[in-house]
C-alpha cells in the first residue's frame, strides 16, 4: 500500500549553493504527482531528497522535514538504507548493473538484502518484469543476457522492474520516459496507472501531456522553489500563478 508524503521547509544545498528553497508539499497515499519545470530548477534534487539520495553526494546538505507515512526520514536514528527500501527510485538515465544478468538485475534488491527463497524470487522477477512491460521481450534470455545488452528503452524498463521487485511504498521516477519511444512511453504510462493502486508515485517529466495524462496532482518548480502545487486539471487549465501560466503556455522555459 502506498503512504502519504509530507514535506516541510525542505532546503537542499550543493556546497554553498542553495538548490531548493523551503519547499512545502503534501502528497496523498496512492496519488500520482507530476513535477514539471524548466531544466535546472531542482526537480531531480527534490525527488532525491525524498529517499535520502541527495546526501550521498559529497558536500551536500539537507534541512527540513520529510515524512513518509509516519516516518520522519531525516530524524536521528532513521537509517538511510531503511528509507531507500521503502522509497524506490527510477533514475533519469537507465543504470542497469552491467555485469549482472537480466534476472539478477531484477533480483538484486532482494538477493543483496539477504532474500534466499529461490522459488519466490522467480515469481517476483517474473511479476516485476511483466509489470514493467518487459517480460515478453526478455523471458527467453533472462539468465543469459546482461542488463547492459538491452536497448536504452528496455534498460529503463528493466530499472523499473528492479525498483518494483523490492515492493516499495513510494516510487520516485525521474523522467523515466525521456529515453523511450512513444510505444514504450505509452506502456509506462499504463503501468503508472496500474501501480497507483499499490504505490504513491512521484514522477518528474518534461512532457506536459504526460503529466496531464498520468498525474492527479502537479507541482511546478522554478529556480529551486515550488511555485504552484494543485490538482493537475487546475494547473493546466486555470493556474493561479502567472509564472505557471507562462510556462505551460510555452512563453518561456
Amino acid at each position, binding site marked *: 500500500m502506498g503512504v502519504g508524503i509530507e514535506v516541510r521547509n525542505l532546503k537542499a544545498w550543493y556546497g554553498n549553493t542553495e538548490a531548493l528553497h523551503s519547499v512545502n508539499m503534501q502528497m496523498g497515499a496512492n496519488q500520482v504527482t507530476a513535477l514539471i519545470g524548466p531544466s535546472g530548477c531542482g526537480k531531480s534534487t527534490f525527488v532525491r531528497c525524498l529517499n535520502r539520495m541527495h546526501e550521498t553526494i559529497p558536500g551536500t546538505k539537507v534541512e527540513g522535514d520529510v515524512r513518509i507515512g509516519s516516518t520522519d526520514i531525516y530524524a536521528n536514528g532513521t537509517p538511510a538504507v531503511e528509507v531507500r527500501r521503502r522509497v524506490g527510485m527510477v533514475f533519469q538515465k537507465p543504470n*542497469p548493473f552491467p555485469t549482472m544478468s537480466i534476472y539478477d538485475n531484477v533480483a538484486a534488491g532482494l538477493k543483496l538484502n539477504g532474500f534466499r527463497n529461490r522459488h519466490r524470487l522467480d515469481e517476483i522477477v517474473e511479476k516485476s518484469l511483466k509489470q514493467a512491460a518487459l517480460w515478453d521481450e526478455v523471458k527467453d534470455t533472462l539468465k543469459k543476457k546482461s542488463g547492459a545488452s538491452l536497448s536504452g528503452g528496455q534498460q529503463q524498463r528493466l530499472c523499473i522492474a528492479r525498483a518494483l521487485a523490492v515492493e516499495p511504498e513510494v516510487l520516485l521516477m525521474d523522467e523515466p520516459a525521456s529515453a523511450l519511444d512513444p510505444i514504450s512511453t505509452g506502456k509506462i504510462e499504463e503501468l503508472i496507472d496500474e501501480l497507483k493502486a499499490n504505490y504513491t508515485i512521484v514522477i518528474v517529466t518534461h512532457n506536459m501531456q504526460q503529466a496531464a495524462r498520468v498525474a492527479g496532482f502537479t507541482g511546478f518548480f522554478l529556480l529551486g522553489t515550488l511555485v504552484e502545487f494543485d490538482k493537475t486539471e487546475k494547473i493546466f487549465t486555470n493556474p493561479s500563478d502567472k509564472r505557471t501560466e507562462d510556462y505551460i503556455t510555452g512563453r518561456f522555459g
Partner: protein
Amino acid sequence: MASRALGSGSQPISWTRRLSNSALTIFAVVCSILVIVPLFAIFAYLVIKGIGSINWAFLTQAPKPVGETGGGMGNAIVGSGIILGVASLIGIPLGIGAGVYLAEYGRNWLGNAVRFTADVLNGIPSIVVGIAVWSLVVVTQRHFSALAGGVALGIMMIPTVSRATEEMLLLVPRTIREAAWGLGISQWRATLSVTLKTASAGVITGVMLAFARAAGETAPLLFTAFGNQFWSFNVNQPMAALPLQIFVYAISPYDDWHRLAWAGALVLIILIVGAVTAVRVVTSRGMMKGAT
C-alpha cells in the same frame, strides 16, 4: 584505402601528407614488431634450450646430489605453488581491501598516505623486501620458512593489486552505485556485490599481473624460503621454489645442472601462463560481459 576515399573529394590530399601518413603507419608497425620480437625470442630460446630436459622425472623428482645425473624440480614446482598460495592469501585480500578503501573512502589524508606508501612499496627493490621479511619473520622464528617466503611475495603483490583495484573501481560510474543504494542495499554490500563485481574483470587482471610477477621473483626468497633439496610440505620449514632452484643451478659449474636450469625456466613460464589463462577462463564463465 582511406586516403584514396578522402582523396576522391574536391580537395586532393597533398603528397607530403600522404607520405607522412604512411611513414607514421610503418613506424607504428615496426615498433609493435620490436616489442613482440624479444618476447618470442626469449620463449623460443627457452624452448630450444629447455625442452630436451623436460621429462616425467624432471617434473616429479627432487634434485639428485652433486655428481649423480638425473633428478628434477618436482619439489620446487610444488614449493612454488605453496609459497605463492601463502602469498596470494596475504596479498590479494589486503590489496583488494586497500584498493576498495582508496576508491570508495580514500579522499582524505589516510587515503593519500596509503596511496603514497603503495607507490613507494612498488618501487622498492625486491631484495629489500626480502631483507625486511628476513629480519621480521625469519629472525623471530629463528629459521627459514616457506611462510616467510610467502609473506615476502605477498607484500610485493599488495601495491599492484591495490592500485589496480582502485583504478578499476573508479571507472565504475557513480550512477551504478546510486542504483544499488536506491534499492536499500547497504553501503558495504553495494561496494562488494555491485561496484567490485562490475569492476571484477579489471581487478582480476591486476591480480594476475601481481601473481605472475611474484611467481618469477628470486631475490625475496633467498633468505626467507631459502630453498630445499628435498621434498617439504611444511610451511614452517625451508622450501624449494622454481626461481631459487633455477638460480642455484644456473650459477653452478655443471653442464647437466645448466640444462636443468633451462628446463626449469621453461616450466616456470608455462606454469605462469597456464595459471593466468586458467583464472581467466574460470572467472569469465558465469560473468556477464557488459560495457562498464
